[in-house]
C-alpha cells in the first residue's frame, strides 16, 4: 500500500496540485494580513477563529473541489485509466491511495495555513506593532481548530473525489462543489445543516460544543465510509 501511495503522490510532482496547495492557504494568510491593517485591532483568539473560519467557510470547500478535480484529471486527462486498471494490482488499492493522498494534501494545506497565519502575525508585530493582535498567540488553539476542520472536511472531500473520479468531465465535480459551497454559505445558520458535508468544517467554530463534536465525528466517519464505498464501487465498475 505504501508503494501505491508513493506512486500516486509522485504523479502530482510538477502538476498544478502543488501550486493549489500553496496558493489556497496563502490566500487566507494574505486576507488575514489585510484584516490586521484595515480592521480594528482584535485578540489573537478572535483572529485565529476568524482566519480558520474563512478557511473552513469558503476557501477550503472550493480548494477541495479544485484539488479532487486535479487529482482525478491526472488519470482522466491522458486516458491513463486503462493502463492503470489493467495492471496486476488490486484496484481498490489504487482508489484508496488516491483518497489517502487527498486527505494528506488537505492536512498539508492545514499545516501551511497554520505556519502562514503565524508568519502574518510576526509580520504585523514587526511592521506595525500597534495593529498587532492583542493577547497571546495560541498554537494549541490553532492546531485544535485546523485539525478539527480537517476531520470535518473528510466527508466532503471523499464525496468530491468520488464524483471527480467517476466522471471524466470536470463539470460534474465542479457543479457538486460549487452547489455544496453555496449551500453551506447560504444555510450555515440552520442547525440541521450540520448533517450537510460542506457545512461540517465551518460547524467546528459554531461555538456550540455539541455541534462541533457532531461535525468532526460525522466528517471523519462519513469520510471513511465514503472512501470505502468509493473503493468498492469504482473497483467493480467497468473501465
Amino acid at each position: 500500500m505504501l508503494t501505491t501511495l508513493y506512486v500516486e503522490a509522485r504523479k502530482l510532482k510538477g502538476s498544478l496540485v502543488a501550486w493549489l496547495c500553496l496558493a489556497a492557504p496563502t490566500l487566507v494568510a494574505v486576507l488575514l494580513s489585510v484584516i490586521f491593517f484595515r480592521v480594528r485591532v482584535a485578540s489573537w483568539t478572535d483572529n485565529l477563529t476568524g482566519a480558520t473560519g474563512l478557511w473552513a467557510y469558503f476557501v477550503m470547500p472550493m480548494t477541495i473541489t479544485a484539488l479532487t478535480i486535479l487529482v482525478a484529471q491526472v488519470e482522466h486527462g491522458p486516458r491513463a485509466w486503462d493502463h492503470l486498471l489493467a495492471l496486476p494490482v488490486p484496484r481498490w488499492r489504487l482508489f484508496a491511495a488516491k483518497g489517502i493522498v487527498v486527505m494528506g494534501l488537505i492536512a498539508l494545506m492545514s499545516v501551511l495555513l497554520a505556519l502562514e497565519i503565524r508568519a502574518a502575525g510576526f509580520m504585523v508585530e514587526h511592521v506595525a506593532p500597534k495593529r498587532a493582535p492583542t493577547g497571546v498567540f495560541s498554537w494549541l488553539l490553532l492546531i485544535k481548530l485546523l485539525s478539527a476542520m480537517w476531520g470535518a472536511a473528510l466527508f466532503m472531500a471523499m464525496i468530491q473525489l468520488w464524483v471527480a473520479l467517476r466522471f471524466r468531465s470536470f463539470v460534474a465535480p465542479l457543479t457538486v462543489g460549487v452547489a455544496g459551497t453555496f449551500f453551506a454559505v447560504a444555510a450555515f445558520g440552520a442547525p440541521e445543516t450540520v448533517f450537510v458535508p460542506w457545512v461540517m468544517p465551518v460547524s467546528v467554530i459554531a461555538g456550540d460544543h455539541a455541534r462541533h463534536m457532531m461535525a468532526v465525528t460525522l466528517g471523519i466517519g462519513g469520510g471513511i465510509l465514503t472512501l470505502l464505498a468509493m473503493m468498492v464501487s469504482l473497483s467493480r465498475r467497468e473501465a
Partner: protein
Amino acid sequence: MTQDTAPAVQAVGLSKAFGRHLAVSGLDLTVEAGQIYGFLGANGAGKTTTIRLMLGLLRPTQGAVRIFGHDVGRHRIAAARLTGSLLEARATYDNLTGRENLDGTRRLLGLPASEIDRTLEIVDMGAAADRRMGHYSLGMRQRLGLARALLGGPRLLVLDEPMNGLDPDGIRDMRALIRALPERGVTVFLSSHLLSEVQQTATHIGLMHDGRMVRQGPIAELLKRAAPDLFLRTGDLARARALLTADKLTAIDEAGGLVLPLTGGDAQAAAINRRLVSAGIDVIELSVRQATLETLYLQVQTAEAEAA
C-alpha cells in the same frame, strides 16, 4: 492444461453487450504462444471491446477469456501478471520524465529498478528517458509505452494500434521491435488498421466483422486460400474505376493501377478485359497474383455485407 501448454489467449463463446447493442458475439479465438496475431476489423467491429475483455477492463456478458489458462474474469491479477499492454500512446503523465513514468509502473509491479534500463534499451529510448514526457513526440511516446508494457517481461503483449502517428522510420523500427519479440518469449496480440504492416509483421490473423470472428488462422494459409487479385493498368484509370464500380466490383488503387479480388477466376478476368476494351479503355496490363491482406480484408467485408 498447464500454464505452459495453455494458449496465450483463448476466448470461448465470448460476448459483450452494451444495453441492446451486442459489441462482441460468441467469439471463439485462440492465440498460441509465440505467435504474432494480427487482429483486424473495421471500426466498430468489436476489436477494442475484445481487447478490453482480455485485459479485464470489461466483464463478459457470456463466455470467458483465458490468458495462459487463467480466466480473466475470475483471476484477473494472475492473468494481468502475464500481460503487458499498450492501448493509448498518450496515457502517460506529461509532468514526469519518461523514466519516472516507467518507475511508477515498475514500483506497482514490484520489480527491481534495473527493469527500467532493460526495457529502455529494448525500445532504444535510453537517451531521452530523463526528458519530460510533455516534450516527447508521438513516436517516442509509442516507444515508451512499449517499454512500459514490457516491464517485468510479460508473456503476452497486447498492442492496440502501435503504429498510430508514427513516421515511416518509426513504423519500420516498431515493426522490427515487434517481430523480435517472440524470440524473447513474448506472444504478441496486435490490433491495427494498417493492413500492409500487419501482413509484414503477423504470423496469424483474426478478422472481426460486426462482433464476430469471420476468418482466423495462419496468414500465409489464409492468403493462399483467398481468391487471387487481379491487377489492372489502363489508359484511363478513372473511367475504368467508374465502370467496375457500376458493375458492383470494388477496386483498390495501387501502384498506378487497380487491384480487385478475382472471385470468379479466369473467366471473370476475361470478362473484365472485354468490358473495358468494349468501353474504349486501353488495357495496358492485366495480371493475376496472390491476394494481399488488404484484398482478403476487402473480400471478407464484401462477402459479409452481401450476406447481411
